[in-house]
């Protein structure tokens, strides 16, 4: 039978824990907000660059640039898997990894995986899959310059014919409650099917289409990858926050129990 003083002390410590977790909640909320804002702010740029590239691709055709060329089917592809560095992010990583492995099965023989984030690398290594390159995650505040190394690796492999295409697999941030793994074909660049009703060949390109494309392509690849990084960060934060709030509501019940005594 604990003494009255011990019980009081216990109540006090539970109250302290509540205060600490509340402070942590505010920190997490601001991180989540920042990740979300960064993702949403990057979308208009990504969307517009997609449009222009697709228009250019339809003007230039497959012969226009090596990055537009479609290699024969069945050739080995590169799959880039975006995961988080840290755990406690719910089913986010396992969903992504499962999705990537399915993609790997349908891709041609000899296709390889590049991982971003520790979780993807660890899971694939455990499963005995071959990883051609592993990048660490980009942290809570990814910067645009961080992706340059990956960009030159991907473009180099594609141009030298080592890979016949690049697919990005990252979660799409739909809302704090919904995130879905998504496969995006990065290379070769697909010509626009033209849903907007403005065929690309009506655009006047200055100085000429090839020069515009040359200036745009590295930017395009980097933008797409950066966007994958941002989406992953936003999904990681919201998935983790969701888990936390579940735990919080369980804990609060015990706090109330402690406080009412």
């Amino acid at each position, binding site marked *: 039978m604990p003494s009255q003083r011990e019980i009081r002390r216990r109540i006090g410590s539970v109250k302290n824990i509540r205060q600490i977790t509340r402070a942590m909640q505010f920190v997490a909320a601001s991180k989540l907000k920042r990740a979300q804002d*960064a993702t949403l*702010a*990057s979308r*208009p*740029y990504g969307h*517009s*660059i997609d*449009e*222009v590239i697709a*228009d*250019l691709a339809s003007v230039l055709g497959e012969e226009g640039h090596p990055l537009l060329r479609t290699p024969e089917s069945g050739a080995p592809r590169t799959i880039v898997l975006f995961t988080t560095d840290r755990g406690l992010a719910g089913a986010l990583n396992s969903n992504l990894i499962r999705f990537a492995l399915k993609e790997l099965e349908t891709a041609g023989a000899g296709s390889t995986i590049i991982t971003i984030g520790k979780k993807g690398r660890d899971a694939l290594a455990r499963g005995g899959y071959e990883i051609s390159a592993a990048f660490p995650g980009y942290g809570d505040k990814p910067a*645009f310059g961080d992706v340059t190394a990956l960009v030159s690796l991907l473009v180099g492999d594609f141009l030298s014919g080592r890979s016949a295409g690049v697919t990005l697999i990252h979660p799409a941030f739909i809302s704090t409650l919904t995130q879905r793994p998504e496969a995006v074909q990065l290379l070769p660049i697909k010509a626009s099917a033209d849903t*907007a009703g*403005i065929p690309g060949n*009506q*655009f*006047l*390109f*200055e*100085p000429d289409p090839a*020069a*515009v494309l040359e*200036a*745009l392509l590295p*930017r395009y690849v980097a*933008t797409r990858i*950066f966007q994958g990084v941002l989406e992953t960060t936003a999904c990681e934060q919201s998935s983790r926050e969701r888990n936390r709030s579940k735990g919080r509501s369980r804990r609060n019940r015990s706090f109330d129990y402690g406080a009412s005594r």
Partner: protein
Amino acid sequence: MPFTLEIVTPERLAWKGEASALVLPTIDGEVGILPKHEPYVTVLGAGEGRITALDGSIEYIAIIGGFVQVRPDRVVVLAESADLSGELDTAAIEKAKSAAEAAISGAGTQDPASLATARASLSRALLHLRVAERRRKR
């Protein structure tokens, strides 16, 4: 008749709204865009852009790199960086400028890559200063 203008960078949407004219720095000199411009795509250089708002007032914007796409329904500027003169912090730019100048003057011991970086940040600082000046003169 105005047109819809969007200026976006990888990090943010810098400007969105109706405009009656736009001047942009391209790699081959300045280009002016008025309503009903034909569909057009070009590569941007670094320089000063001018947005004429509906009331005739002019907004100055420092643009570095990227490209512009003129569509029938709207004009989209995709810049690597775009800063309105009102958003530029002169003190911070001066600091970046002197840091870049110091890096260049000590260039004897440096590798070409960091020298190039210093040169780039110097010309960026000079451009930002020029655009920030615009606001004060007005």
